[in-house]
Structure formats: structure tokens, C-alpha cells
């Protein structure tokens, strides 16, 4: 049995194709049942997010069976198979297991290291159990995927260093102020960027937010969304002394905050640090303010430089993450190897059971034992003896099955029964 995956993602398919192939929650049951109707597909799982659609199958002949999945997909999205092939990739065996570990860890995401994909993969495993696609293989794969992803996220910095401008701005604020719980932010403007930054600030636990905008109603609306207060645009400078973080993104053509304004504010706030984030083009905040002591001004270009540096850092962390993924892969295959011995163990046990039944019948007829209680006692004795005899070799057989070694028969017996040399 091996795992194979047929999929497409943001690297292989344009958004239009991804949209067509996306699997809605309501369609899952039908697609799962279609895939599982193939006798040679033992287990299956579907991952469908905005950036990827992937079909995992557990099969013994991935070439034939992945074709059947391709057919189901092409029927489902009404796209020609040859057309579909252009956008899809196929992995099998170790590559497919490595692929799912990479996907769950965020290494294969559009924004490398983003954490949401881990939750989406967990949900997909849950759906696969719900719709009857999961068996021993996928259940174990889920366990190892979760374990490996947690290690990657804990022991590497793959999820650190933000790679979006608004989040990078908030992260920079924490580099100055540490905790934001006792800090106040002033948001100048109520556009999309300001809204995003405000929401990131709220998530980071900001103490309070004041919003100002030329259209006061818009300021009030944003303030309401982030549990803040709104202030008239003409009087926002009175808020400067109490504001630690100032984020500005307006369409103003002239500077809204000058060095003189900040000098006055700094005197009132006893020169406690201030952080200005100017996302506007043309700029709202005078760049000369950065020359003032304890004041830091970041423009949109500075933030982009932060994002670029962070992206490079994440790429470095991805190399480290691959070490944990390879370790997880090795452990998963160790388990898989140990599973190969299960049919042998089952057959050995069955053979012992059959012999036991046979001998019990022979014994009862030979000694004419008809009392059922008497027979039950004898059966109990034989079963207990059989279990005791089998326990050590079966345990050792299971443990040693992942170790690929060649033994002579006498060596194998010694290992299985833990025999000691007799003098």
C-alpha cells in the first residue's frame, strides 16, 4: 500500500482553474463515495482551500487509480482530462507523505509559513473520517502530520517575521513597545489599509484606538469595529501626546503631521517613544520626524523592506523545517514497515488457534470428556499457555520488523524467543 496525491495549487494553476476545482462542503459526501467506490482505493482524503485542491489516495497501484480520481475530478468540474493534466501534479510514496507534511507546515503555501493551512489540513482529515475515507494508514498519517507540523512551528521560526505590510507594521510596534496592552494608537484615515492595521493592533492586544478621518462618519464606523473612539479630523493633533503608535493612510497631498507638532507632543509626554507608520503615498508624516530622539518613522517603502527581509528569513527557516519533516517521514515509514508484519502475525496466531481447536476436539473424544465446565477449564489452560508462548516472539517480531537485517534461522529464533546460550 502506498499514498499518492493528485493536486493543483497556486503555483500550477491560475485562480480561475482553482475556483472551478474547489470542492464545496456540500459536495464532499458525493465525491468521497465516488472515489471510495473504486475497490482498489482503500482510503482517500480531499484537501480543498483557496490556494490548493488535493486528492490523497491509499492504493496498491497508484498509476491506474490516480487516473480514476482524475476522471472523477474532470467529470465533477466538467473539464477535459488532458486540459486538467496541464495544471495538476502527482506525487506518490515517500514524496506524497513529504508533500502533506510540507503543506501542513505552511512550506508549500503562497505566504510561506502561514498558520491557517494547518487548521485546514486538520479539518480535511476530520472530513475524511466523517465521509468514510479514513483507515489505519490515513489515521496514522494524520497523527504524524500533526506531530511533525507542531515540531516545525515550535522549533523553527517559520511562522515568525510577518510578511504582510500591515502586520509587519504592528510587529515593528511590538519591537519598540513590547506589550501593547498599555499603549494607545491613533489611526489617521479609515481606508482599507487603516482598517487592516487597526484589526492587527486589536489582535496584538492594543490598549486603545482613536480614529480620525476627513469624513467623520467613516472614522466612527471604523472606531466602532475596533472598539475605539473617533475624533474630528481638525482636532486630531490634540491626541498626539497620548498616542504611542500613529498609523496614517490618507489621500492628503500635503503633510498632515510635521516635526514641530511632534516636538510639542514629545515635550508633553516626557519623551516617551512614539512610532509613526506612514502607509500613504504621497506621505502624510514628515520624514524629518525620524531625526527626533525617541521617535521612529516608517514609510511604506521601509515596511516593504521589512517584509522582504522577513521573507528571506522564512526561506532560511524552511531549510531547518525540512530537517524536521525528513525526521517525521523516517518515523512514519518505520511505522509503515512495522505494519508489514501484521498479516504474518495474524496468520501465525490463526494457525495456533486452529491447532488448539483440533487438539481440544481430539483430547475430549479420546478421554470421553463431556462435562462442559471441565472442557472450558482445559481450554483456558491451553489458551493461556499458547498466549504465553507466543507473547515474546510476536513482540520481538513486531519490534524488529522495521530493522532490515538478514539473519540465519538459528539467529532469528534466538532473537524471537530471546534464547540464551546453553552450556
Amino acid at each position, binding site marked *: 500500500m502506498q499514498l499518492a496525491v493528485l493536486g493543483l495549487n497556486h503555483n500550477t494553476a491560475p485562480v480561475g482553474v482553482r475556483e472551478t476545482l474547489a470542492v464545496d462542503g456540500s459536495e464532499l459526501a458525493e465525491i468521497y463515495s465516488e472515489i471510495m467506490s473504486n475497490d482498489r482505493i482503500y482510503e482517500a482524503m480531499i484537501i480543498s482551500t483557496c490556494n490548493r485542491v488535493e486528492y490523497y489516495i491509499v492504493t496498491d497501484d497508484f498509476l491506474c487509480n490516480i487516473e480514476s480520481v482524475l476522471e472523477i475530478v474532470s467529470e465533477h468540474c466538467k473539464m477535459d482530462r488532458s486540459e486538467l493534466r496541464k495544471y495538476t501534479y502527482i506525487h506518490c510514496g515517500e514524496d506524497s507523505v513529504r508533500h502533506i507534511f510540507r503543506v501542513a507546515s505552511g512550506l508549500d503555501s503562497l505566504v510561506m509559513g502561514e498558520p491557517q493551512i494547518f487548521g485546514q489540513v486538520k479539518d480535511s482529515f476530520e472530513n475524511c473520517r466523517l465521509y468514510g475515507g479514513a483507515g489505519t494508514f490515513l489515521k496514522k498519517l494524520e497523527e504524524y502530520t500533526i506531530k511533525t507540523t507542531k515540531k516545525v512551528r515550535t522549533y523553527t521560526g517559520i511562522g515568525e517575521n510577518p510578511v504582510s505590510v500591515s502586520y509587519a507594521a504592528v510587529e515593528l510596534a511590538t519591537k*519598540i*513597545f*513590547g506589550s501593547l496592552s498599555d499603549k494607545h494608537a491613533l489611526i489617521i484615515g479609515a481606508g482599507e489599509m487603516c482598517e487592516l492595521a487597526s484589526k492587527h493592533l486589536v489582535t496584538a492586544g492594543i490598549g486603545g484606538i482613536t480614529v480620525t478621518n476627513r469624513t467623520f462618519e467613516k472614522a466612527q464606523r471604523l472606531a466602532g469595529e475596533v472598539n475605539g473612539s473617533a475624533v474630528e479630523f481638525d482636532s486630531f493633533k490634540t491626541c498626539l501626546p497620548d498616542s504611542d503608535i500613529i498609523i496614517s493612510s490618507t489621500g492628503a497631498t500635503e503633510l498632515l503631521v510635521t516635526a514641530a507638532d511632534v516636538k510639542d507632543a514629545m515635550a508633553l509626554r516626557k*519623551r516617551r517613544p512614539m512610532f509613526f507608520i506612514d502607509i500613504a503615498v504621497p506621505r502624510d508624516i514628515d520624514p524629518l520626524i*525620524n531625526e527626533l530622539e525617541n521617535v*521612529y518613522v516608517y514609510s511604506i517603502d521601509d515596511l516593504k523592506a521589512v517584509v522582504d*527581509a522577513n521573507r528571506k*528569513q522564512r526561506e532560511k527557516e524552511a531549510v*531547518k523545517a525540512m530537517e524536521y519533516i525528513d525526521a517525521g517521514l523516517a518515523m512514519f515509514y518505520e511505522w509503515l514497515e512495522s505494519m508489514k508484519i501484521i498479516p504474518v502475525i495474524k496468520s501465525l496466531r490463526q494457525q495456533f488457534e486452529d491447532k488448539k481447536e483440533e487438539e481440544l476436539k481430539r483430547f475430549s473424544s479420546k478421554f470421553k470428556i463431556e462435562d462442559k465446565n471441565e472442557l472450558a477449564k482445559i481450554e483456558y489452560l491451553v489458551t493461556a499457555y499458547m498466549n504465553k508462548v507466543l507473547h515474546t516472539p510476536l513482540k520481538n517480531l513486531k519490534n524488529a520488523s522495521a530493522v532490515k537485517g538478514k539473519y540465519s534461522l538459528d539467529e532469528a529464533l534466538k532473537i524471537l524467543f530471546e534464547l540464551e546460550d546453553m552450556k
Partner: protein
Amino acid sequence: MFFDLSILCAVLALLHVTLFIFMGYQRLASITNIFAVLGLVFSSAQFITLWQTKHMLPFGSVSGLFLFLSQALMLVYIMMYIKYRRLTLGLFIFPLTVLFIMIARFAGGIPANINPHAAGFWLYIHLPFTIIGTAFFMVSTIGGIMYFVQERQLKNKNFGIIFRTFPPLDTIDKLINTTLYIGFYTFTIGLLSGLIWMMYANGVINIYSPKLVFAIITWIIYSGITFYKQIKGMSPKDTALSTIVGFISVLITYVGVAFFVMG
């Protein structure tokens, strides 16, 4: 044996913190702290053994003083780590710990015999408190330097390894304040007990003693900083600068008096 083990632990802690900063493996952080704690345990065991066998503390020798200073630095690091969870501090503290412990080693290690002039209740209060106070001042100065470095990174928009691994400015400022205040109170106890010890030992307080004069100057500088902070308030940058100025006076007290005034 404990002495050598504490050297080994300090070196290993330094090695692991350096690897952590440059390689970023989180596991190295816990290993660093294990070595730091072990280093402190071993050097404390050295002092306890000395007290049990010879009923003395090794303050009569340069090596003993440096050994205690390295131990005090390790103690301050552990305390500050528990409070602020910042391993970067170790990158600055451990080299000093290793340096001081090596000086102690090359200055003859633990003295074999008790120096009768370097024993007594008040001296055993004076020296540990002064040294621990000095260790706190050292760490506050390290914080001051870190503040300036990180502040430059933020101003110049350099987003390299230092920027990522150094703590936020606010955390550095809090660390400076904590070490500054604890250092000041500890140093004050050390200074007062030193005066009492001097009175018992000489029968009189010699106010012209260069060591005392410089120690009082140091105390005045630090008390000036702490009182100004309390009453008027000080910006984080000025606080960082004041720790560096304060520590220069500590250096003059120790190095200046030892090498230039005393001859």
C-alpha cells in the same frame, strides 16, 4: 572539582547561546539555561564546601573576588531570564562570566589559607552585597548598550540578525530599571556595611581612603540617577546613557583605585 565544573558550564552556556543566536534552534535556548543554572550550582557548591571545611569565604584573594563576581553575574542572568525571558542577555553576560572565572583561575584559584584581615561578619556582608550590586550595575550597563544598538537598528531600519534577536526597546528599558534599582539598593547595603566594617577594623572611618571616596562618588552618581528618575522621570534613551556613565564610575572605583591610586 566544583570550580572546574563551573568553568565548563559557563563556557558551554556561552557556546550554546552563541549557536542559538546565529542558528536559531529553540532547543539550544533551554540547554543554555541548564548550563547557566548548573554553573551557578557548582560555584555555590564550591563556596559551601569551603565554608564547611575551612570556615572561611575566599574574599581575601583576587581569585575569590572574581569567582564571586562571576557567580553573581550568573545569578543576575538567571533572575532576569525568569522575569523577562530574554536569552540575548546571555550573549553579553556569559563572556564576562567566563572572563572573570578564568581570571580567578589564573590568579591562583581558591586560596588555601584564610586571610585573617579578610574575615568577619561585617566584611561578609559588605563584600557579597557590593559585588552583587556591581553585577546588577554591569547588567544594567549591558542593557544600556543593547538599548543603543537596538535603537540604532530601528532608526536606520536595519533588519538583520541583531534586530530580530534583541528584545523590544520597552523590555530593555524595563530590564535596565529593574537592575538599576536592585543594584543601587544592594550596593547601598554593601557601602554601609563596609563603613561599619572599617570602623570595627580600624577603630575609625578613614574618609580619605581612596577606595571609600570613589565608592561614595559611585553611590552619589547612582543615587542621582535613581532619584532623578523617580522625581522628574527620564526617557529610556537617557536612562540607557546614565547606566553607561554610572558604570564608568564603578570601573574607576575598582580599576582606578586598584592600579593607579594604590600603586
